[in-house]
């Protein structure tokens, strides 16, 4: 049976920079009849700290996020093996934040008697947005209309971290009116990599240039992705070039005009 409600972990970039992507996610989920809970107190999943090697800090952030996502679980009296049943699925509109919760929370907190089991349970219930739609809800098509050409950049953590290859493509290909053109070298990293873009900005810029050339080659005026972080990076590069290509989170396409 599909779940009746979900918890939305919106991510810090949607909270601060691209709220419209989060609202589009809510819109799509509600249209499917789901109740969308947005647990208060969400901040950042801690991935930047984890990737910087600051694992103590990342652990503190992981514990905070787990507290937020498990707040409605009755304290103390739920044995770890029952935790899973008590949690509504966690939907994350970002491949890289979902990958952090899914793969790295359980690793980081493996030795923690309280948070270790919480991390396992939450990880098992955590899905990236398109993965949730296709794998959990069994949706391949949402009623959406998008006029014109678009191209899709599969972000690395979604693709190679979570192994989600087809879900976004399936959903996109079923959008009425959308002409999806394949991005050359689609699976090449855009060069974002979090702090990598700042600490190794020259290498990152060179990687971005290659991605931007590929995007412009498609002639599509819209680039779609499932990670606001990569879209921010690509969008910033496109804007610097004076390109007219717009970046959109896939949810924004699915929520419709």
């Amino acid at each position: 049976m599909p779940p009746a409600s979900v918890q939305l972990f919106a991510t810090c970039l949607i909270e601060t920079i691209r709220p419209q992507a989060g609202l589009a996610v809510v819109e799509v989920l509600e249209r499917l009849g789901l109740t969308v809970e947005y647990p208060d107190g969400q901040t950042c999943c801690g991935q930047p700290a984890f990737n910087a090697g600051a694992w103590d800090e990342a652990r503190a952030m992981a514990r905070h996020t787990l507290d937020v996502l498990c707040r409605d679980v009755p304290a103390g009296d739920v044995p770890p093996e029952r935790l899973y049943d008590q949690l509504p699925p966690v939907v994350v509109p970002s491949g890289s934040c979902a990958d952090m919760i899914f793969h790295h929370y359980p690793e980081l907190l493996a030795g923690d008697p309280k948070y270790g089991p919480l991390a396992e349970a939450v990880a098992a219930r955590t899905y990236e947005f398109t993965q949730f739609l296709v794998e959990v809800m069994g949706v391949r098509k949402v009623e959406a209309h998008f006029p014109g050409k678009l191209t899709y950049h599969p972000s690395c953590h979604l693709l190679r971290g979570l192994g989600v290859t087809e879900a976004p493509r399936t959903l996109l290909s079923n959008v009425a009116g959308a002409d999806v053109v394949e991005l050359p070298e689609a699976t090449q990293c855009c060069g974002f990599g979090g702090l990598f873009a700042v600490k190794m900005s020259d290498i990152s810029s060179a990687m971005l240039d290659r991605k931007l050339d590929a995007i412009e080659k498609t002639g599509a005026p819209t680039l779609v992705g499932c990670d606001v972080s990569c879209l921010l990076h690509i969008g910033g590069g496109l804007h610097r070039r004076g390109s007219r290509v717009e970046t959109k989170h896939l949810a924004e396409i699915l929520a419709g005009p």
Partner: protein
Amino acid sequence: MQSNLTFHERVEDALQNQTLHLALDRATGRFTSLRANAFASFADNGDAIRDRARMIRAHTLSRLDTYLAQFADAVEAAGGHVHWASTAEAANTVVIQIAKQNNVRSIVKGKSMVTEETHLNHALESAGLTVIESDLGEYIIQLAGETPSHIIAPAIHKTKEQIGQLLHEKIGMPLTDEPSKMTAAARAKLRDVFLNADMGISGVNFGVAETGTICLVENEGNGRLTTTAPRIHLAMMGIERLVPTLHDLSVMLQVLARSATGQKLSVYTNLITGPRRADADGPDQLHVVLVDNGRSRVLGTEVAEILYCIRCGACLNACPVYQQIGGHAYGGVYTGPVGAVLTPALYGIDLWSELPHASSLCGACREVCPVRIDIPRMLLQLRDEGHRAGKTPGWLKLGLPFYRLAATTPWVFHLGAWLARTATRLLAAQGWLTKLPPPLSGWTASRDFPAFAPRSFSAQFKRRKNHKGTAFTK
């Protein structure tokens, strides 16, 4: 022969080198597509055999002491001599001793990464010996006075035009940009080297513990000549380079050539067990030098898995960072993703703390690794080590407590977001910031940064909940 430049200076040089870009684009793209085609010859794209190859390596490394002893006994039983070297210097000393004891004057070498690691050529030349590389790529690099920039294609950083020029200048080849003519010129030059060499030095792709066999794969035949024509064959190998049985070897060979060059099998697969027998040809003596040089320290650590590496170079070709900067920028003998793990693992994070950060953690390396080494995981592990060793840049160290406070205290997070929103909206022109202060200036060197949204997601979500039924603003 490490460069005196800093990591960032080396990267800068590499990024500005247009010829390097041309060379890397040509070669890495070709290797990547050849590899994909080669694995397509398995029904499951090689998933199962890669799993098996990984298991073989994991098993071997878990009982390395046993297999090393078995291998050494088998080499000696076949008539070879085994030498143990705990460091690079010790390994070079052994080689020089063997050369001196046997009145060796000239040496021909096959391709070997471990001898690069010990800087053997330099040591041999300092001891008055002549040494000539016979692998075409290595020969080119030796003529140019450079170091290899790729595990299997040492001269990958050079275009054919540059190589034509080099061979013209160094060995008097008529100027050409046809690779076949260059190969012929080098071949003619090397023929005498093989025939006159007193000693041939090779690396080892795999040592087979049960038989004491040395396996050497190559495409040029130079490896076969190096190991058979001179009267002494000396093979140098890292202690982790073993497989238990010949059957295990057959598994490794199936993934090695596919991963390296996209071949099902390399043109020459040499299996050498002992020196010449009484009634056959081959070298009079076989010496095997087993080199530790830091490997035993890596065993049992969180990054021990890097010792599974079979040196195919697939992770280099697939890596978007390597594709941009090539091998020399990494600064160590081993380059690319595997080098970014192996170099700090062998020589210490203190000297090599930047390398694990030279990755966007995109995972392309893990995807192509024939033994499924989780390189991104180990880069993260080494970043953690570096951080604990105090290698994190000052600005980040300073910012971490604030970041931690904000990410664990929602009101601080919202206050920080409000400040950032106010600041970015004040400073942005038409929604974009084009210049950020250091350390964020790296971002705006080539990208703009968007101003924060006028209203946060959480505020808009709450408003929407409260006005349930009314359309929200987008």
